[in-house]
């Protein structure tokens, strides 16, 4: 069953066309990896799914809810973690999570239960009363992930969620994404770490210059690129036409 449909979405910022007619869909029991070089339009398409950026054309439906028609309804069911999230640094970790949970309408008991549980799971227990300003980048990332999961979303949109996470926390987040997928909560996940995409994504969409360049499972992409048996990195470099890196490396070491 389809959880997300992105249909011919177009978005430009001033003169720059960031997304040029992107379409893909995500099934309920699926983890979709969005891959692409910097500036390929991954973050923009993720923000349009959440309703943070309004597309110039096309449509997006999340769990049957049209984003343009009911943006608040979509925000209630989506869990979103942006790339390098900026949090309210004058709040403590616990105050920030309490704020997010309240805005999502969680009851005090539910808030207490979930926040305590997540803080413990992601090793933030004992630091929750400190101002976010003093947190490391990894701690801020964990906080943003918890905030995205607190309201038990029906779909997760995670823009490079494993950035700055320590190995244990990264493993927990990966296992959590798998577990949620098994429970019918799909994830759209962007990353630059191709091994991660290879390991956890059921399907991969490769974006380049605001377009979908290729789509399929890791195996299907290898066949499309004609590099069966090679790493996803080679497939990615071949498909995006950036495979010839030797000259650059030589220039850098000269």
């Amino acid at each position: 069953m389809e959880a997300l449909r992105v249909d011919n979405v177009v978005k430009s910022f001033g003169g720059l066309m960031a997304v040029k007619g992107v379409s893909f869909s995500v099934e309920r029991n699926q983890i979709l990896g969005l891959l692409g070089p910097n500036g390929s339009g991954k973050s923009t398409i993720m923000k349009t799914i959440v309703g943070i950026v309004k597309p110039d054309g096309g449509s997006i439906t999340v769990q049957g809810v049209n984003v343009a028609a009911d943006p608040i309804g979509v925000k209630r069911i989506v869990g979103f973690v942006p790339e390098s999230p900026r949090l309210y640094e004058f709040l403590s970790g616990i105050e920030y999570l309490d704020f997010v949970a309240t805005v999502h309408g969680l009851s005090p008991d539910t808030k207490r239960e979930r926040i305590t549980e997540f803080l413990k799971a992601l090793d933030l227990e004992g630091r929750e009363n400190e101002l976010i300003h003093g947190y490391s980048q990894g701690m801020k990332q964990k906080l943003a992930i918890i905030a995205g999961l607190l309201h038990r979303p029906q779909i997760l949109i995670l823009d490079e969620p494993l950035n700055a996470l320590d190995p244990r926390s990264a493993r927990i987040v990966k296992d959590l994404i798998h577990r949620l997928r098994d429970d019918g909560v799909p994830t759209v996940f962007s990353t630059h770490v191709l091994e991660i995409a290879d390991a956890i994504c059921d399907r991969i969409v490769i974006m380049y210059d605001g377009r979908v360049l290729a789509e399929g499972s890791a195996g299907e992409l290898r066949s499309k690129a004609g590099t069966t048996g090679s790493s996803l990195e080679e497939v990615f470099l071949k498909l995006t036409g950036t495979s010839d890196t030797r000259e650059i490396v030589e220039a850098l070491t000269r």
Partner: protein
Amino acid sequence: MNLRAVYSLAVVLTRSQIRGTQRSKFLARVFGEPRIILPVDIALLFGLGGLGYVLLSTSGQGLLDLLRPIEPELLAGIPSAIMFMAILFGVLYEISQPIQSMNTDLVNWLPLTPMEYVGGSTISESYIYSFVLCLFLGVVLGPALALGMAGVWIAAAFMAVVALFAGASVVEILDATTNRISSSFYKKSGRSGIVFRLIATVVLLVFIQLLFSGYIVGYLLQSVMQAAVSAWFIPVVWPTLAVLGAAQANPVSFILFSSVSVVFAVALFGLAARFRARFWVPVPVSIKLSTRAYQPGQFHLPLIGAAESAMIQKDFRSLIRRREMARFLAIPFVLAISMGISLVPLGTQQTAEAPSFVFIAILFLLPVAIFVGALSMTSIGQEGYAVWNLYAAPIKPSQLLRAKVLFAAILGIPFTVALLSIFALLLNTVGTYYGILLPVGVLVVLEASALGVYFAARFPDFREMVRSRYVSVWGSLLGIGTALGVSLLTVTPVALSISLYGAIIPQLAIVSFGIGLGVFIVALKLANHQIQSLFQNIQT
């Protein structure tokens, strides 16, 4: 000390400071390079000096005779004034930095010694504020030339440069010590430390604001000159005493005090480098607000939803905990004290000469409109880059509107009552004035809150930089202008009633209330529409 590194750092720090305060691309292009300061300095120095000289040469002997006894005092006062200004501006710059830009990570992992860092920073600070030096020296150059005191002027200029350098070194010392003290203090004191910092910052801002009032500046300058001679043992007055020595043609005094002034400035520089090496804490300190176990938020205001209450609570925390927001909390104190100072002479007059209702109404309503308008106009932009948290949350525009309007009103209404109480205490006038001004004041608070949110959503500025203003210049001008306009419009029927009939006519009072409520409702609708539009055309 690597002088090339010191120079490079000075250039980078100057660029950072002058570019950090410029909003428009045009200004950044024209004034974005440190070299722009030099022609400005030259223009101020020789432009003002030349103008003064020409004016005095063409004027009669009378003006010169008038200036002759004052000029040496003015010249001697400049070094102290420059040192004071350098310290003041330096401290103000530190206060206005947002929490995100406080880390100086770069200099911590570059191969720079503390001495090189302080050298670069001191030169940068001295250069940036050199326009103040040139302004002061330019003003006194013309009279000095016309009065044949060029030599004293040169002595004053030299001592002013030394004083500027000393002032910049003091800022470095303050920077390093407050960094360490506040880091240790916050670590230990947590929440109370933040409150203490807020109070200290507000007091400092109020003090600085009042210091710029003409009366107090004049009094201070006079006191400095009177005190300088008797306080010869205090190092900060040595540059002034050196100039006085030159003015009195006393070479021993000039050489002695100018030498010790230079030694004092160099000693301050050395101390700043030592303090930097010893006290600087390069990483943000962890501040623990509480040790209690988590209890879900109980803050819930009546008549509004939990989400609105949570947003209001967040904005209060923002106002109290962000040091760059302290200036907004300082506004009511500055306004109330300024009003109080200007009312004292009026209050001593006889009842027959007591100020009119129109005068009191304007004097009372304008600060209310300014404070509440400024607070609500910045309410959206102050979210900064963290505004995505609101965009991504299931919050309706009407909920955000309610939260922002109520936040401004909650602070505005007590200020209105307090200001009116000050008026009642200081002015010897009719009690009924206050009976009508209170509801009108509350209406103005509501109007300014709603209008402010409209302008906040229409012209937001989310950039986090030094002296962030959170709303565009155009938006703030329009917003304050509109808030002032509607406040006057609201009080006009009541003012007419008192002016024409000598009493409050109920029908005209009702018209005033009607205007106030009408403007409030229209402003709410406009603001709601504007927030909807903001949510659809998000700037991220």
